[in-house]
């Protein structure tokens, strides 16, 4: 395979370089070119990885979870091939492999660690024949692109039950009925993770929650505890199907505002306290998922604990930057459940906040902005000192906040992001948080970097 592949790799690299010169899509261009020349390049290059590959997919938390796993594996000194920047469709994954590929069938890395777009999972799994697949959660997200949740659940079933995906060790979130269901009937090669802490239980299920009905018989689940969206402890009163008991779990969870969180991690090889430099219950789930995948890869507990604790915020996920001497914390929001967790985390901080909300409707954000009406901005309504709404659909966000209960006098619409940023920098006296959608987050970072204001918090 290696010999005929070499000229194609060279050509794809040249095409990628050319595309960069012309200002084209930088990350995935060489990979896309390679896949046109060799449709099975992902499988061919992935086959060079001595320790195989692990795949991570979820609606929320893919990038952060992969960063946590990478940090754990770094403790073990495992050289990784990892799509760190989050380009998670076939082009991005092929680019990552291409960048690592060397002459004579070599590759600069031993283990592939790839976050994979939900829809692409079956195809990537068929190519890479992964050792392990981690599936974190499934929430409603970008319905215009992903279609209905059921469609993704079906594709995931296909990915893990058919073809090469069957051989992978499955690591599943026991607390998400849609995800846990994928493991029904699967034998020992399966590892569940979940949270066991009733002090976290919400009074009820969030409006945007999905999967309220039994996957087996269609009756409404009874939830003994709802932790996040539709994640929690559930059982079906009709047919008895219930949350599976997790092998890797978190107890005694403490959430400390927008900076940190901690929990006790339980694994088959021992327990330990984890002090995360990441905020919110959603990051506790990400850390737990990473610990579970690392357990499946037989990483010792000490390395898991050290790796989790040394992870810093990924790209735009609770990242902190300085804006004209003001601390600006960037909290990516992109779908109702993710936004709700960010809002829940924000209200742990005392006092009133200044916000910079940036709502874009580009393809990577989802063209449909309906989702902001499913997010519980009401949580924050009484805590807004001033909010600047920006982005391609700034006005829609302004209306959402007005109907959530924010006084219209406190809402300022500045469609242009650089004017919005200037306006945000102008005042002081309250913490400043940016809540951008995905492409808005990229633009925001670009603007900040151009002004020399991003700290290198990545890696």
């Amino acid at each position: 395979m290696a010999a005929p592949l070499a000229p194609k790799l060279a050509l794809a690299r040249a095409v990628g370089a050319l595309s960069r010169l012309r200002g084209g899509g930088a990350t995935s261009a060489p990979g896309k070119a390679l896949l046109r020349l060799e449709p099975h390049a992902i499988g061919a290059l992935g086959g060079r990885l001595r320790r195989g590959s692990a795949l991570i997919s979820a609606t929320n938390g893919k990038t952060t979870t992969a960063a946590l796993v990478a940090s754990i594996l770094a403790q073990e000194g495992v050289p990784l091939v990892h799509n760190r920047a989050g380009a998670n469709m076939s082009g991005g994954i092929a680019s990552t492999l291409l960048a690592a590929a060397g002459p004579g069938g070599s590759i600069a890395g031993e283990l592939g660690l790839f976050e994979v777009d939900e829809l692409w999972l079956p195809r990537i799994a068929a190519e890479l024949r992964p050792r392990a697949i981690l599936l974190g959660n499934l929430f409603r997200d970008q319905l215009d692109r992903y279609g209905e949740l059921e469609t993704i659940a079906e594709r995931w079933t296909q990915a893990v039950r058919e073809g090469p995906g069957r051989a992978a060790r499955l690591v599943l979130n026991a607390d998400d009925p849609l995800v846990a269901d994928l493991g029904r009937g699967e034998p020992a090669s399966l590892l569940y993770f979940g949270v066991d802490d009733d002090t976290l239980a919400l009074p009820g299920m969030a409006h945007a929650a999905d999967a309220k009905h039994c996957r087996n018989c269609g009756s409404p689940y009874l939830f003994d505890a709802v932790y996040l969206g539709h994640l929690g402890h559930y059982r079906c009163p009709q047919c008895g199907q219930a949350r599976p008991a997790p092998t890797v779990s978190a107890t005694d969870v403490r959430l400390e505002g927008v900076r940190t969180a901690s929990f006790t991690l339980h694994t088959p090889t021992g327990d330990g306290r984890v002090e995360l430099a990441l905020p919110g219950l959603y990051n506790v789930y990400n850390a737990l998922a990473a610990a579970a995948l690392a357990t499946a890869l037989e990483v010792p507990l000490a390395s898991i604990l050290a790796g989790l604790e040394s992870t810093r915020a990924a790209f735009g996920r609770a990242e902190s930057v300085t804006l004209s001497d003001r601390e600006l914390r960037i909290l990516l929001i992109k779908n109702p459940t993710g936004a709700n967790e960010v809002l829940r985390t924000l209200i742990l901080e005392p006092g009133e906040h200044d916000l910079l909300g940036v709502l874009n409707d580009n393809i990577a954000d989802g063209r449909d902005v309906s989702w902001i009406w499913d997010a519980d901005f009401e949580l924050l309504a009484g805590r807004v000192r001033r909010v600047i709404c920006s982005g391609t659909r700034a006005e829609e966000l302004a209306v959402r906040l007005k109907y959530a209960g924010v006084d219209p006098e406190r809402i300022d619409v500045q469609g242009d992001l650089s004017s919005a940023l200037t306006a945000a920098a102008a005042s002081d006296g309250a913490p400043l948080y940016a809540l951008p959608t995905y492409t808005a987050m990229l633009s925001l970072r670009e603007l900040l970097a151009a002004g020399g204001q991003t700290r290198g918090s990545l890696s």
Partner: protein
Amino acid sequence: VSTAASPTLRVCALYPDLMNIYADRGNLLVLERRCAWRGIGFQLTRCGLGDPLDEAVHDLFYLGGGQDRDQRLCSEDLVRLKGDPLRRAADRGAVVLGVCGGYQLLGRSYELAPGEELPGVGLVDVRTVRPPRVQRLIGNVAIEVLLDADSRKPGAEGPRRGPGGSEAAGDTILAGFENHGGRTLLGPGAQALGRVLRGHGNDGRSSLEGVRRGSVIGTYLHGPLLPKNVWFADWLIATALRIDLSELAPLDDALEWEAHRGARRAAGI
């Protein structure tokens, strides 16, 4: 029945736990807030699977969007338990608004796949089919609501300016987002809600969008519909309360009209 002195809008949300996929909550929230800001009472009743429907105590019935799976769960219940009361309510002039999946279930039937047909409640003379292997109709959409001579129908009041805005003639246009696999076909007696200006509409071919029979309205526009089309929200409130639109106190809708313009811009007009 509400009185002019202290009116209350009594809304019944049908299957709010299942039929809510496209942020249908936003539509209900807009009705609630716009009543509250005017001193009009607002009552919301949730009516789910297996719940009986008392049509006499509601002015407006709302049925939102759902996934195939949710529609399967609801359609039989809707026809069996809620069909007759809904028809009686519509006959006496209550507003019934179905959005997306809810619109499909207001019609006669929805053929999800060859050989699988869900019954609809038949409030309007439409049926929906989904031919195999057709693309979903997805994207921003704007329609011009069809005018007619009846002064109780939308758009017929003539341009109404929001106090904060200078919007003229914007109030016959609805802008939103559509995302549906089904193609909805109007029966011989059915009237569309509007003419497609941008987007796909009922079937991607006829240039027609939605359906309207008196106070029963079905549309594929979500996004959600009402926050960016508040003139239409007000028309629904007035119609449901059986008052003239001019009796509703004006509100400062500057932001809402901005959002309307943003949604139209996204649709390309």
